């Protein structure tokens, strides 16, 4: 039952909201949160990082005028600034508010922008925590992208949380897995942060973020060589009184970046245009600058017949390394005249690299876990795929 909002505590409201929406899906929770009286004035805090676009997209569907708070630490990458502008424009968001530290505070504490070198906590406090706290003081609730799978302390994460008895935190994606996020982005063809393709699976401020090597923990690039793992006052005894830094919150949701195996070695994925399902090729924008298709292992490749011209990349799924359909799919696509990039993705093991290449694939996309277990040397041992090949002899290719 709706509590009396004039007297209800944050606890009462949170309990009511959780009860009411416990069986709703992420989108429904978000949609209701935007209008439910028990929530009150609400804003989305977004870093415009790699996965932020999911919530931004949902907001744009339900209420494009929802305030979006973007924290500009003034230490961000140029790419993030550009991406922020692009996404806001593309999604038609009408109330994006850029939050910055007060100029006087910066002048007093970090005039040369070098504080991060000596005291990252102080720097984060100055550039993120304090400005955000100020911006949120006008709101009753804010939306985050936190999810249950992200850790033990979040295993019981609810859609609605009491933040210090003065604000509600809304976590619409609480039940999502990393795959859900990826699927959502793929299915809705959402633009990806340009730095992902350059090896930055976790994107923060420029001085404190470095690219991650394929197979490395995606967060390894943050505050490299420092003890620091979280920003500022992120966790206090597991209780968050002032809220974890939202910029960090979103970044935490990054799916570990897959590794691309080529004849030359492991590289980062340079494909930044997303993938669409083969069946959606029909409906995809004809003027899309670059088209990449995901082909399931049980797909019939003939659905692509006659439409391969505008396709730049096809990614064939290997749900298990013992499922060899992908090899024949690759050969068929080549026989159909596909000359673009052909990628095997999923559970492909080093021992299969020769087969992959000989079947017509250009490269393999594997999970970081596999890249770690089977490092490049093991793939390299199979990289001389042109030699010792009976097929070459039988087909006169030698």
């Amino acid at each position: 039952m709706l509590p009396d909002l004039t007297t209800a505590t944050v606890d009462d409201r949170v309990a009511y909201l959780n009860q009411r929406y416990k069986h709703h899906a992420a989108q429904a929770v978000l949609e209701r949160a935007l209008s439910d009286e028990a929530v009150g004035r609400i804003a989305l805090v977004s870093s415009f990082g790699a996965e932020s676009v999911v919530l931004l997209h949902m907001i744009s569907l339900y209420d494009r005028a929802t305030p979006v708070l973007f924290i500009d630490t003034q230490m961000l990458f140029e790419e993030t600034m550009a991406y922020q502008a692009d996404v806001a424009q593309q999604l038609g968001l009408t109330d994006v508010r850029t939050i910055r530290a007060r100029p006087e505070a910066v002048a007093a504490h970090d005039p040369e922008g070098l504080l991060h070198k000596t005291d990252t906590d102080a720097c984060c406090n100055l550039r993120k925590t304090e400005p955000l706290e100020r911006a949120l003081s006008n709101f009753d609730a804010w939306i985050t992208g936190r999810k249950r799978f992200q850790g033990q302390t979040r295993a019981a994460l609810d859609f609605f949380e009491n933040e210090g008895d003065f604000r509600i935190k809304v976590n619409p994606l609480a039940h999502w897995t990393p795959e859900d996020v990826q699927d959502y982005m793929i299915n809705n063809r959402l633009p990806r942060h340009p730095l992902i393709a350059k090896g930055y699976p976790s994107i923060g401020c420029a001085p404190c973020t470095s690219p991650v090597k394929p197979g490395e923990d995606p967060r390894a690039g943050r505050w490299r060589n420092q003890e620091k793992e979280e920003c500022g006052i992120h966790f206090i005894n597991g209780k968050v009184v002032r809220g974890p830094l939202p910029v960090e919150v979103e970044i935490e949701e990054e799916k570990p970046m897959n590794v691309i195996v080529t004849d030359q070695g492991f590289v980062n994925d340079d494909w930044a245009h997303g993938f669409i399902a083969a069946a959606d090729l029909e409906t995809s924008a004809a003027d899309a600058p670059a088209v990449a298709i995901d082909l399931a292992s049980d797909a019939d490749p003939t659905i692509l017949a006659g439409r391969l011209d505008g396709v730049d990349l096809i990614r064939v799924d290997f749900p298990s390394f013992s499922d060899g359909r992908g090899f024949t799919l690759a050969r068929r696509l080549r026989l159909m005249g596909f000359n673009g990039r052909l990628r095997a993705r999923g559970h492909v093991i080093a021992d299969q690299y020769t087969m992959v290449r000989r079947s017509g694939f250009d490269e393999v996309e594997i999970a970081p876990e596999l890249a770690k277990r089977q490092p490049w040397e093991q793939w390299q041992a199979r990289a001389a795929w042109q030699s010792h090949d009976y097929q070459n002899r039988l087909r006169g290719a030698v």
Partner: protein
Amino acid sequence: MYKYNDFDEAFVRERVAQFSGQVARRIDGSLSEDEFRPLRLMNGLYLQLHAYMLRVAVPYGTLNSRQMRQFAHIADTYDKGYGHFTTRQNIQFNWPKLRDVPAILSDLADVEMHAIQTSGNTIRNVTSDHFAGAAADEIEDPRPYAELIRQWSTDHPEFQFLPRKFKVAITGAPNDRAVVKAHDIGLRIVRNDAGQVGFEVIVGGGLGRTPMVGKVIRDFLPKEDLLPYLEAIVSVYNLLGRRDNKYKARIKITVHENGIETVRDLVEAEFIQRRELFNGADQALLAEIEPAFAQPDYITADSQGFDDFYKADPVFRSWVDTNLTEHRQPGYAIVTISLKAHGATPGDATSEQMRVMADLAQEFGHDELRVSHEQNIVLPHVHKAHLPAIHARLAAVGLATANVGLVSDIIACPGMDYCALATARSIPIAQQIAERFDELKLEHEVGPLKLKISGCINACGHHHVGHIGILGLDRAGVENYQITLGGDATENAAIGERAGPGFSADAIVPAIERLVLAYLELREGPQETFIDAYRRLGAEPFKAALYPDEAGGRKHAA
């Protein structure tokens, strides 16, 4: 015989190195057990009931004395002094240690042999007629094509992870000795009306738990289209074959579920595309392979000694009558050495026996041996003048059993004694039946009779195509043997029919005896074989012999 060229040699060596690396990577954790399993299977290494089992390919069943001696060496060095020849013309070693396997593979490479693709969900060792190149009824020697298929299928990048194993057999003679209709792909060399030689292509045959006789997908395939056509079939199967249920994954089920017409349409469409990939290099390679299978330099010799000995020695005579097959060259014979001594394990040979067979091949047999799918060893080219000497030396090591094609020449799978999947013993049953008929001294009178035993429904003993088939099952913890009748593995392929309720381990041998004695009663004369009599009379009189009480009971009641 085919000789490895530099390419083959380097390939096999590389493969040995790769497998050594895989063993090491399994040990250091780079490969999970799930990932390692298919890799070891691809290299012939199984995990059996007691230990690892290494299955070595004898491509299309042809080998020379040096290779046979190497088997003896491996048996002595890494195993318990013997090896087991299988129904797929392979040899299995039942007791190798994992750490020795790379060394064994390396020893094999020394004699141009390997264990590649003898197991796993891939195209297996191609089998062929064990009398190829010697039989009088042959249109063409199938082995050059078999070797071409071996090269094509070896490490074929598309076909290492098929839905299920894939077996190809090829024969060049109208009398099918390679059971081609019970293979995923069977190839028969045929001559069309225009007099051209090509292939009849059969798909979807197989035994196992759902036995099926293969269906003709193409009645005449020009020779030069062989590889693209095979590639079309296997690629269609790779995408269409079921992967959700292991027992429905073989191509015989794919053909059964989709219909041969649908499969044919898909294959023919794919074939047109695949043909583009071949530009004649395969035919050039075939032309290089062919001379390796040229007829040997036959000798002429006086066979008076043979004739005299034949008249004088009844044991020799019986062996000659039973174990020899007509050769295309006058004065020559094809000798089948029985690995079915009464009471021995069918298909087993000791290292000493292997060496004797190797010596005989080298001295008298143009250095050639064959492994037959009936688990015997063949000396394909022997001048009759040498037969007395050969017989004597075989007899000295227990290899002169005169029972080829008779009731005691039993095909039996390893069964419960070695196989992890078995539901019953098969070898001991084979031994008891052989011994029983030896006691009765009847088997020569009974004449040609194919008896085949499997230790579970996977049917490795081919019981479905035995004139008499025995299938060992487990009924509530007790071995139970079911009999099938009327199967045929030749060009007239047929799946045997179940005769009725099964028999216990104690009752199965007497049941077989009743069955065979009934045949002797029922036949029109010695010229009417068991299978002919069965076809003339149907199953009833044989069932009556198997279940006398029941028949009597029914009569009584009526």
